């Protein structure tokens, strides 16, 4: 085989592997709309010949599923907005203002990224209990807002904006807040979008802390609700896959619409 043929074979192989990679998701969707006997048929029915909506409507009517979607939306939106609002000025102070001890303080902030929520759940539980925030939205999102990832990402981005812009604005009499709002922020669209996407995805999917902070089914976020479904139907895969499929639909839609932004957002937020 010549070089070009080999190259073509390579991409075809990659495409086949990619389809196989998505097979679990397709299997999930297929199971969600199969009649129950087909789910447990041997040999398996890969493509359902009849589509039934029982499992899906069961999830929607017997469980506060839409309420879980709403809860996830509230938590994720609040996290995204709040963490952006507090991270922007902090990143500005770490990148555009000169002050003694700046880098040392930043390093301390940064190293706290190594502490995942999982390590902190017991003290957070005590704290939230004392603040009477268990089983509330703020109880779920407040700890996530304190994650330093946003400050880190924005600082990196702000550092690459030419300092001359600030200086020119200062000559014109602008103060620091003014510079942040009218010089830095208008240039930071991609970084803000990246941060927003990252925080939204993270808080939409957060599991461990939410599971501890939320106790009443009507307050559950989507991941916690799905886990509750499993507790109730240990083997009813039709219902379980229906719930999982419904939970996946928003991800599919958002991804189809925003694929480039999401992937770029991920690369901007990650350490490389």
């Amino acid at each position, binding site marked *: 085989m010549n070089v070009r043929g080999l190259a073509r074979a390579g991409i075809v192989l990659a495409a086949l592997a990619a389809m196989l990679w998505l097979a679990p998701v397709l299997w999930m969707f297929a199971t969600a709309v199969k009649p129950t006997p087909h789910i447990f048929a041997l040999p398996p029915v890969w493509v359902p010949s009849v589509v039934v909506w029982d499992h899906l409507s069961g999830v929607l009517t017997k469980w506060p599923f839409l309420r879980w979607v709403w809860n996830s939306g509230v938590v994720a939106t609040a996290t995204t907005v709040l963490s952006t609002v507090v991270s922007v000025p902090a990143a500005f102070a770490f990148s555009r*203002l000169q002050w003694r001890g700046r880098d040392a303080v930043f390093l301390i902030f940064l190293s706290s990224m190594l502490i995942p929520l999982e390590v902190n759940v017991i003290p957070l539980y005590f704290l939230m209990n004392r603040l009477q925030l268990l089983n509330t939205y703020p109880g779920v999102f*407040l700890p996530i807002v304190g994650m330093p990832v946003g400050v880190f990402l924005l600082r990196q981005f702000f550092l690459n904006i030419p300092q001359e812009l600030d200086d020119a604005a200062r000559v014109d009499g602008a103060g620091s807040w003014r510079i942040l709002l009218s010089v830095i922020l208008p240039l930071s669209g991609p970084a803000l979008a990246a941060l927003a996407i990252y925080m939204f995805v993270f808080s939409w999917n957060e599991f461990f802390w939410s599971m501890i902070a939320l106790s009443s089914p009507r307050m559950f976020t989507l991941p916690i609700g799905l*886990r509750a479904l499993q507790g109730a139907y240990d083997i009813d895969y039709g219902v379980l896959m229906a719930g999982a499929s419904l939970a996946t639909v928003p991800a599919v839609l958002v991804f189809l619409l925003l694929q480039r932004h999401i992937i770029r957002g991920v690369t901007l937020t990650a350490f490389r």
Partner: protein
Amino acid sequence: MSWRARTVWDRVRAGAPAEASARVPSRGLRRLLRAGEVVLFLAPFAAFWLLFRLGPVLYGVGISLYRWDPLGDVQFVGVSNYLRLAADRRFWNALRNTLAFAALTVPGILALGVGLALTLFTYRGRPATRWVEAAFFFPYLLNVSVVGLVWRWLLDPDFGAVLLALRSLGLRPPVFLNEPAWALPSIAFATAWWLAGYRMVIFRAALEDIPEEIFDAAKVDGATGWRLLRSVLLPLLKPAALFALVLTGISGFIVFGQVLIMTAGGPGRASEVLALYLYRFGFEYLEMGQAAAVGVVIFALILSLTLLSFRWLGYGSAG
């Protein structure tokens, strides 16, 4: 000119409104105003960070030194929670499982991520790569419950598609999640499926950061194929690999959701990991002090991993 040299007060002193220049503040006051400004910028974030991040870390170390009775009886017991952990075979089992899980997932996820990124990079520019990238990345957007439920269904001992597919190939696969030796590796496999695409995207971005001149120079030197990969690309990916190692390692140490949903730590305790141990002792047996001590242990694991990785792979080029 830097921010330091130009404050409102400097401009005032440099010659302007009379009513203001009458009271030029002292150097000390100006410094104070500047410090005040920095504090103002940092305060909103710092409040969240202190209250919900640094505070709880210290609080957690404190709790781990107490015996915390749910009926309200709180008693200082020093390191005895840690001693109880050290004497608990179940704890050592969870620690071993956690390390095994990290050892299974980290190399797998990193190798898959680098391999996929290199493949996409080789075929960059072709329209197909966009779809291939999307397909591999997509599982990362699923939440852990969906991943756990789907893989539990795929690996179901009686009707799971994976077992049926393997059997139809004439193999006799183990009943993955119900067999002690296979439970943890199965969860690790599902985790790799979930997260490898994320790593792929990161490594791909790192590859795209490599300046074109380096490829030109390598071509002049006659480095192609494996030689290019080994001597040029992989060394350049080292900083990315360092952070990927640390972050993937951390996610291995705190694994919880997949385990809870796929096996609940079973069969027996074959897949009980530290986070699950912590959860059970804290919220099922209400041994809060002992659970907090497990949190400190997980943190110590993460810290050692980070320090070791920095030592192996060097600091300098990171970031």
